[in-house]
């Protein structure tokens, strides 16, 4: 059996990475991710982790180094946050097209401006449509477990896409909790050795041109480019079942069964439902429990996998409720709402179910979303079910 430790979320991520045995770790520090890369450096310095550590001059290079190493056959890892992700964007944007199975932790944070170094999911939500798989963790244990799962998914030949494993800055990065570390042998058996990604590699034994100019209006260009684009979409859709299989196998090997796509909490007879993502889910579940004690038939759907978006599962889970309150930790400025709210609306419209849905935005810039806040969300969603519609989002911390 592995050992049990009490660690913060950044150390849990470092353990998840170390257990996955990457060859190359390229890092650049940024609040609130910094301690994560310090843990990795410490693991490598102590010999607990056999990886090459490259302290690069910025996040743009951190991901670029992973591109190179991965094209030479390496399993690779990095972590970043907010401004770091923004600076990383150019190679980030390119990664899915190269179909590189890279795993990067996002320690989610609100972006500048106004200048802010505290938690929020604006960074992750700003890159949701690039072609990276996104999985959001609820607690420290889930962070540690999800990183090996992420490699299993990324390196699956039917997927071959990069994965962001996201955990909330501050609340999870610095919050301490009990974590059961799996045995290295268990993770080894689960993950296996990384195969060289022969579809795109730079090896003199097998020369190829990686990323030649593709497209243009004539010849094979347009159809070839479309084939690449459709390939990413196919990989994403394949990932839905691969993610489920990977979580199932992880559960079998470790005894910890995480909901792979969405988790339905007390949804069986629910009349109204909350939709949550990330660490806010803990307080939300407490609020649901309290409301249940007073007789309210309320349930909760937690989104673990945000990309690919498990639209059918969400529509199915919410099909029977009379109203839905979606709580976001980020803002979709163009829609005057939260981004997850938009996603849920889109998923529902693909089904026959019709019910009012409201957007709640909270936890920005490190603000707490308390059980009390969620009680207000539940109360407002009950009134929504009763016909009190909303045209504006509710900003949970605007008077805090």
């Amino acid at each position, binding site marked *: 059996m592995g050992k049990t430790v009490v660690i913060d979320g950044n150390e849990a991520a470092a353990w998840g990475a170390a257990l996955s045995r990457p060859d190359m770790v390229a890092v650049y520090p940024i609040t609130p991710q910094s301690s994560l890369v310090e843990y990795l450096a410490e693991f490598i310095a102590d010999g607990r982790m056999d990886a090459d550590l490259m302290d690069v001059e910025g996040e743009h290079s951190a991901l670029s180094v992973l591109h*190179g190493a991965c094209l030479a056959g390496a399993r690779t890892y990095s972590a970043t946050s907010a401004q770091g992700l923004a600076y990383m964007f150019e190679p980030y944007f390119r990664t899915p097209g190269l179909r590189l199975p890279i795993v990067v932790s996002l320690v989610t944070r609100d972006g500048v401006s106004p200048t802010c170094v505290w938690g929020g999911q604006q960074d992750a939500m700003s890159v949701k449509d690039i072609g990276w798989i996104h999985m959001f963790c609820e607690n420290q244990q889930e962070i540690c477990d999800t990183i090996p799962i992420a490699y299993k998914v990324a390196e699956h030949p039917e997927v071959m896409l990069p994965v962001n494993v996201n955990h909330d800055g501050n609340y999870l990065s610095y919050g301490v909790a009990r974590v059961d570390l799996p045995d290295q042998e268990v993770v080894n058996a689960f993950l296996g050795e990384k195969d060289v990604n022969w579809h795109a590699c730079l090896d003199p034994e097998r020369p190829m041109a990686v990323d030649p100019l593709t497209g243009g209006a004539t010849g094979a260009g347009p159809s070839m480019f479309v084939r690449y684009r459709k390939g990413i979409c196919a990989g994403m859709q394949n990932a839905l079942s691969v993610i489920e299989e990977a979580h199932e196998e992880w559960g079998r090997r470790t005894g910890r069964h995480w909901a792979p796509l969405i988790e339905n909490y007390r949804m069986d007879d629910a009349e109204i439902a909350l939709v949550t993502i990330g660490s806010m889910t803990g307080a939300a579940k407490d609020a649901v429990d309290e409301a249940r004690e007073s007789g309210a038939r309320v349930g909760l759907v937690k989104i673990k996998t945000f990309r690919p978006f498990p639209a059918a599962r969400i529509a199915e889970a919410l099909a029977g409720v009379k109203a839905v309150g979606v709580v976001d930790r980020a803002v979709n400025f163009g829609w005057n709402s939260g981004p997850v709210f938009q996603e849920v609306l889109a998923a529902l419209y693909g089904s026959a179910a019709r019910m009012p849905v409201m957007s709640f935005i909270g936890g920005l810039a490190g603000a707490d979303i308390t059980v009390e806040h969620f009680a207000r969300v539940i109360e407002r969603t009950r009134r929504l079910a009763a016909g009190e519609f909303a045209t504006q989002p509710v900003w949970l911390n605007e008077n805090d």
Partner: protein
Amino acid sequence: MGAFDTIAFHPERCDGCGACMTACSTAKGGASRLSIVPGAGDGRFELALCRQCGDPRCVMVCPAGALFKESDTGVIAWDETRCIDCLLCTAGCAYAGIALDDASGRVSKCDTCDGDPACVKVCPTGALEWVTAGDIYRDYGEKEDLFVPGLSACQGCNSELIIRHAMRKIGRNAVVATPPGCIPGMGSVGYNGKTGCKVPVFHPLLTNTASMLAGIRRQYDRTGRKDMVVMALAGDGGTSDCGFHAVSGAAERNEKILYVCVDNEGYMNTGMQRSSTTPFGSWTSTTPVGDHMRGKSQDAKDLPMVMVAHKCAYVATASTGYMDDLYAKLDKAIAASFEGFSYLHIYSPCPTGWRIPSDKVIEACRLSVESNFVTLWEYTREKGLHFTRSPDRPIPVQAYVEMLGKYRHLNAAETAHIQAKVDEKVALLRQLAAA
């Protein structure tokens, strides 16, 4: 047909002193095997000497098989035991390269003193030169061409020359990065699924070439494949401007990379826009010449010097006008890339963007070096900086500037500014070279 080292003659340097003939006579005995004779009335001298021809008439006309071309040196050898003294060879040669020696009564000709000619050593003006470029072409010819056949560069562009030579040098056990610009524009990474190289090649981003190569090199070092060359063939924009963070970071970490920067002084592939290595006064499409602007108003970033400040394992400048120098530096740069960051900066004129005829590119290279606008030097941590071609006795930079269309608008003061900057740069280099 092989290429061989040979004796070159620069008539403009010859003062007719005859020291070479005396040295030859002393070294070989008998009459001198070369003759310096007055030219056709222009005050210059001409040289009569065996050309060691590739298709030698003397050999063809010899009825006795006494003359033959040595396969390893290219020298036309004379076998005195076979010679029947018919003198047909002296009639067959158009260059007076083989002649009757009155003293011995037999023919005699230059044998290059086994590759160490006595005449060259005594020439006081440098009019005679032992040219070793033959090594380059022989070496080049023996190595496999790893770049796509044909040429899709602009006419006269030397970048294709650099690519071909560099890739032949590194061989098949290599990975090559060609960031966006003229070099992939020439088809190195191919188009729509077809490659342009026989080695693994890729388009990095314009901005991350050195970082991607660092990741590749580290992984192959980790898996024990340390003998692989990991090389960038990049332009000045991606090196000096938006990709500089990656170059500087990789150099600081001493990543084992061969980084070749082909500097054509601007973003030529995208339409000749200004870069930080564009020199003062240059017309570019973003530093045009009009009533309110007279080309680039700032001086160029001296990137090779910036790399010296990084204390790289190797830093050198080169020009396609001096291929022997470039070739030697390529060898050193490749060797250094197994020890640490190795940086080779090659100045490569852009006939299209600089507005010069395509047949004037090598001349532009030569004038840029002869005027010290481009200096040829190399740096190592152990030995510091030294010139590989003397910057002494330069010609005025005016001679270089006036042959380039991009400087057509320059006035005397602007040309003087360029001259002053050249002098300033050479003074600094001299200080470093002396240190």
